C-alpha cells in the first residue's frame, strides 16, 4: 500500500529548511508559498529519504479567490506519496514557476493548465496551448467561463 505521508510532518521539516515557505498544512496535503515552490520541489526530489522522483500528476482548480495547483508526488523507492499545493491569487495574468526542469512529466500537463486554466508557467521551455488553437479566447476550465 502506498503510504500517504503526513502533510504536517513534511511541512514542519520544510519550514525548518526554508522558513516562511509553508502557507498551511493538513494531514492530507501542504500548501507551499509559490515563491518557494522550486526550492521545495528540488528538496523533495533530492532528499534520499523522501525521494519523490515520480511526479504523478499536476492539476489546477479555480476557487474564484485563487487558483490552486496540485502536485501529486510519488516515491517508487519508498512507496509513499505526498500532495503539494500552491496558490496564485492573481486572476488577470497568474504565473507560477515551472517544474519541468525537475520532472519532464510536467511538460504537457503544465501546457494543459495554461491552455484551459490560463496559468502561465515561468521557465517552461515551450509554453503554448495544448488542446485549443492559438488565438482561442479565454480559458474554458475557469469557473467564470461560459
Amino acid at each position, binding site marked *: 500500500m*502506498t503510504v500517504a505521508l503526513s502533510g504536517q510532518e513534511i511541512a514542519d521539516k520544510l519550514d525548518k529548511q526554508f522558513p516562511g515557505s509553508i502557507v498551511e498544512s493538513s494531514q492530507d496535503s501542504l500548501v507551499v508559498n509559490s515563491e518557494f515552490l522550486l526550492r521545495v520541489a528540488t528538496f523533495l526530489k533530492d532528499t534520499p529519504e523522501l525521494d519523490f522522483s*515520480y511526479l504523478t500528476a499536476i492539476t489546477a482548480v479555480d476557487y474564484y479567490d485563487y487558483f490552486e495547483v496540485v502536485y501529486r508526488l510519488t516515491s517508487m523507492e519508498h512507496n509513499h506519496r505526498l500532495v503539494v499545493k500552491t496558490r496564485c491569487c492573481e486572476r488577470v495574468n497568474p504565473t507560477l514557476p515551472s517544474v519541468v526542469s525537475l520532472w*519532464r512529466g510536467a511538460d504537457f500537463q503544465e501546457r494543459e493548465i495554461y491552455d484551459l486554466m490560463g496559468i502561465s508557467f515561468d521557465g517552461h521551455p515551450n509554453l503554448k496551448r495544448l488542446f485549443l*488553437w492559438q488565438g482561442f479566447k479565454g480559458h474554458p476550465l475557469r469557473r467564470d467561463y461560459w
Partner: protein
Amino acid sequence: MAIKTEPFVLNLGPVHPSTHGVFRMRTTLDGEVVVDMEPVFGYLHRGIEKLAEERTYTGVIPLTDRLDYLASMSNTLAYVLAVEKLAGITVPERAEYLRVIMAELQRIASHLIAVGAFLNDCGAFMTPILYMIREREKILDLFDMVCGQRLTYNYMRVGGVSHDIPDEFLPALDKFVNRMPGFIDEYDQLLKKNEILLVRAKGVGILPKEMAINISAGGPVLRGSGVKWDIRKADPYSVYDRFEFDIPTGTVGDCYDRYRVRIEEMRQSVRIIKQAMEQLPSGAVKSEVPHLIRPPVGEAYAHIEAPKGELGFYLVSDNSIAPYRCAIRAPSLINLTALCDMVKGWKVADAIATFGSIDICMGEVDR
C-alpha cells in the same frame, strides 16, 4: 559522396492510419531521418472535464466511458472509485469481484488491440490484428452479455455495478479463460522470434529507465523500461490484494520490451480472472446509493492501473450535486512526453513503430 540534403517538415496525421486516431506528428526530416518531432494535440478535445462540472456525479459516468474508448470499463472504474472515496460509499463484495473481472477482461481487450496495431505499424499488415480482433470480439460478447453494450458500457456504478451477471456469463467466461492462454502461446510462438519483428522492434525507440520515471510514464511503457511499478501491487484498490499475479518488466525499454510486457500482462490478467471466478461470492451487486449524491466538501483522488498506465480522477466537491472540479490524469497523454526523444535519429518507419508501441488512445489524450 553523400548527397546533400536539407531538412523539411512533414505532417504525419492528423488523419493517418498510423496515428491511431486524430493525432498529428509534425516531423522535421532530413532525408528519411527524423531530426525533430512535435506532437500536436486537440483534434478530439471535447472538454470532458468541463462537461463533468455541469452533470450530477452519476451523470459523469457515461462521459468517462468515452475517454479511452478501448478500455471503457477501466475508465469508469477509476471514476466511481473516486466518487466512492469522496462520498464514503461502500461496495458489496460481489460487485468488487465483478469489477476486477471486467477490468481485467478490458485489459486483455485493450492489449490485444495495442499489440495488433503495433504489429500493423511494424509491417505485419492486417493479419496479426485480425486474429487479435477475433479474440477481442469474444470479450466484447461477454460485455454485451452483462450490460448490453459493446464499447461504452456504463457498467460500473457508484456503489457497485449496474447488473448482476446473467446465468450464461460464467460458463462463457470459463470457456474464454481456458482458451485464451493457448491463443497467446500460439500467437507468441509465431511472433516472439520472428526475424522481421526483431529487426523492426529490438533496440528501436529506447526509453531509458531514468527518463521513463522522469517523464511520469505509466503502464507497459514504464514497465517495459524495467521499472517494477504497478498500482495493483503498489497501492491495491478494490480487491486486488487477494490475487496472485506477477508484474512483467522489460530490460532496455525498446519497442520489443513494451510488446513483450503487454503479452505477459495478458497472461497475468487471465490468471487474475481465474482466481476471481473461484472466489466470486454471492450477494448484492450494488449498495443503496441516493439518486443525487451530495458528497461533503472535500476532495479525493483515486487511481487505477488502466491498460495504458496510471489513470487517476481528482474530484473536488462543494457539497452540491455536481463535481466542482473533475480532473483526469490521462496516461496516454503523459506517456507521449518523451516521444520526440525516442524517435529522434531514427527513420520515419521506426518512428511509426515507436509511436505504435506506446499505445495511446486519442479519446484519452485529448479528452
